[in-house]
């Protein structure tokens, strides 16, 4: 199931909330856990046993680490076993096909590919589970003796499909005790509807622009359209992902949780390093805590520091999908971050802000080309178009397609900045009456238009009389 799905919006969520609010607190985790299993099974029934097995293993490993708290060697071995199982499952289900096909291509080996489909959310729940085990190992919190608590945390339908990757330490207190009140519900509805609007009204609409540009032969895309296209893709991706995690955070609020924020106006970043502090923040924070710092971070010699940066960025890249271009994409950012760190970062800091934003967005957009196209030939062809290989800057073809998306494009640009939030605050303070009437209307309209879009998604007129 997805949040942007009518079954979720009109049946699943209302029923879950009703039940969740109705039962006494000690049963709330149970309701949450069972509804998460239902949610998961709805989209991926065949991998439900895997998820349960995975949860059980991590629950038991957590207990075992805690039990051997006084024996560092044994404790470490148990953690290692747990991590090997977690990472092993991720590798098998997510990367096995890639590894086999690459080995076959490179060495002509005829290893058969079992073609396992990737279990929904495995990249997210694996990372959450690791944060649980390592946290116990580091003594940040004690192992949970109640299976339900671990189960609820790992399978939580709020973040299982797209995050935010919530480290156990940030949510541990609320797993046991949380305030569930009307304020939380109202804020949750607000966050959810804004997130839904971002995904459905902005992302799903701007997606048409990129679909058109991407379908055009790169040799014929004028420079301007190539940029408009990739910026369209940048918007599509951002509003899809940030909208989705905002919905997750919203549902979390309704249930009494405070999930970590995942995006902070990433396209307003003033440098590439700044971008990664604002884009998919929960992932960056996870890599920092569980890979970068344990490797020594930047408290080591320059050579080791550089190695650490590359390790983190190669992993970040390949985390995004089992295709080699994601590795290049990670490498690309690793190199840029090094260059910023050691070469031109200080210079950029002296630039005026608009130039910094431009600089950062420029490199992020180049990055999206590596992210979106899977083969080097496609990547270079499109990059070529962005630097004028078609020999033209703009044409009427470009005007036609751009004009169809211009309004959404500018809305996307506007909502990439902090202005709408600022205007919202001003409006609320200066014109409280207008606010009280206007804001609910805005939210309801957003919700209603999103629903209209979702209902229409199965609009498939059967065309009689095909001539």
């Amino acid at each position, binding site marked *: 199931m997805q949040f942007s799905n009518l079954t979720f919006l009109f049946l699943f969520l209302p029923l879950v909330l009703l039940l969740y609010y109705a039962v006494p607190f000690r049963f709330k985790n149970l309701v949450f856990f069972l509804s998460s299993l239902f949610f998961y099974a709805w989209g991926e029934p065949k991998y439900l046993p895997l998820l349960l097995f995975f949860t059980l293993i991590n629950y038991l490993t957590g207990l075992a680490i805690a039990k051997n708290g006084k024996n560092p060697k044994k404790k470490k071995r148990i953690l290692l076993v747990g991590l090997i199982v977690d990472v092993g499952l991720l590798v098998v289900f997510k990367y096995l096909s890639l590894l086999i096909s690459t080995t076959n291509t490179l060495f002509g080996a005829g290893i058969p590919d079992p073609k396992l489909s990737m279990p929904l959310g495995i990249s997210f729940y694996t990372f959450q589970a690791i944060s649980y085990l390592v946290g116990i190992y580091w003594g940040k919190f004690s192992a949970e003796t109640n299976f339900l608590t671990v189960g609820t945390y790992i399978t939580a339908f709020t973040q299982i499909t797209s995050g935010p990757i919530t480290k156990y330490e940030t949510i541990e207190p609320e797993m046991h005790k949380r305030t569930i009140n009307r304020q939380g519900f109202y804020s949750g*509805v607000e966050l959810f509807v804004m997130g839904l609007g971002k995904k459905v009204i902005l992302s799903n609409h701007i997606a048409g622009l990129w679909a058109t540009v991407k379908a055009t032969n790169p040799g014929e895309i004028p420079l301007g359209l190539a940029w408009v296209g990739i910026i369209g893709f940048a918007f599509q991706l951002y509003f899809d992902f940030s909208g989705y995690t905002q919905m997750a955070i919203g549902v979390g609020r309704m249930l009494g949780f405070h999930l970590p924020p995942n995006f902070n106006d990433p396209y307003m970043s003033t440098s590439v390093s700044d971008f990664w502090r604002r884009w998919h923040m929960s992932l960056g924070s996870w890599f920092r805590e569980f890979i970068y710092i344990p490797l020594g971070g930047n408290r080591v010699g320059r050579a080791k520091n550089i190695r650490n940066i590359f390790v983190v960025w190669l992993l970040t890249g390949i985390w995004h999908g089992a295709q080699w271009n994601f590795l290049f994409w990670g490498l690309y950012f690793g190199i840029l971050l090094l260059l910023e760190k050691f070469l031109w970062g200080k210079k950029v800091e002296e630039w005026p802000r608009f130039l910094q934003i431009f600089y950062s967005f420029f490199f992020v957009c180049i990055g999206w080309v590596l992210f979106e196209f899977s083969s080097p030939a496609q990547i270079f062809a499109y990059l070529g178009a962005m630097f004028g290989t078609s020999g033209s800057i703009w044409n009427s073809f470009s005007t036609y397609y751009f004009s169809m998306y211009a309004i959404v494009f500018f809305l996307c640009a506007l909502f990439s900045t902090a202005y709408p939030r600022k205007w919202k605050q001003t409006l609320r303070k200066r014109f409280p009456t207008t606010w009280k009437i206007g804001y609910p209307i805005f939210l309801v309209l957003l919700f209603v238009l999103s629903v209209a879009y979702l209902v229409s998604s199965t609009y498939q*007129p059967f065309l009689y009389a095909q001539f």
Partner: protein
Amino acid sequence: MRAKMTASFLIVLFVVGMTIATLCLPKKKYSQSENRALAPFPKISFNAVTSGEFSRSFDSWFTDHFFGRDTWTAVNGGTEYALGKRENKDVFICDNQLMARLPEPNELYVNRSIDAMNSFAKKNQGPSFYAMLIPSASEIQADRLPKNATSTLWSQKDAIDGWYQTLGENGWSTVDAEGALEAHKGEEIYYHTDHHWTSQGAYYGYEELAKYLNIAAVSQSSMDVETVSTDFYGTLYNKAGFRGIQPDQIDYYFPNGGEGVESVTITTASGQETYNSLYFKEYLEKKDQYASFLGENRAYVSIKTTANTGKKILIFKDSYANSLVPFLTSAYDEIDLVDLRYVNDSFTQQFTPTEYDDVLLLYSVDVFSSGNDLSKIDW
């Protein structure tokens, strides 16, 4: 907090209301506006549930039967239009008119069709051969398209010129339908909600065709015109999902005071049926009102007229011909139609080409440039 509270209250009310309405109100099995059966409630079985089939089908069922579905799609179409979208599912949304975007011609199919036509003309010496390709509205009325849309289209005129050249060298007289329609592009020669030409458009096609067939075109002013429908919403209207377009009007033109038809015999796999009219008015009550011209597309239609000219014509056609054929009834005693898309054998089992005075191929550019059936002409 007050504002959020109000919003939450309204949204909860909306959600609960819609859910109850969706679940409790009686369900339609069929969508008139989409012309398809709506998803049935899925069967529950162990296999269906564990394979994910059940949940997928349930989602479609819930969405298909969502309360006020047609209104929602209309709201969404309006939103997209307001956001600047002027094209949806390959349909251009012009001012109160919809037009189809034709896919790029399938060169392989087109070459195969032309080869077959040329070979066919060579094998069947005797009759005169005429080819008439009718461009779509987006070519003729390009000035009505959304701004700059033309730059994204291929030229049907250039394509026709190329095809005609080869056909012309191989015994086919080629009819300049494009020029004839171009001369009247300001008039309503295409439906606004459907991809076909109107009877008016078909008349201009006939007028031009008559010059080639060497028959006297009946003047429009001497014909009776009957408006049989003013509420026709065609295929483009359904496809685009945009509701802000007025319905079309369908006119029947009667040359010589009446249809001039003795019998209309339709042959299908299940047998033969004979009628006494070119028009099937029952379709005016259905969704696809254009089908009231000669009924649905059929493999073979044989028309006997009261013209008494001693001439026979064989027409290979798509549905564009259905509204042009009525004009030909005064020129031929017998008009035989073959729709190769519905023919699975050689059509010669039904009609013998050499017995005709004229053989006409009448296709829309749309079908001609993308269809694979025309090669059957040479089977």
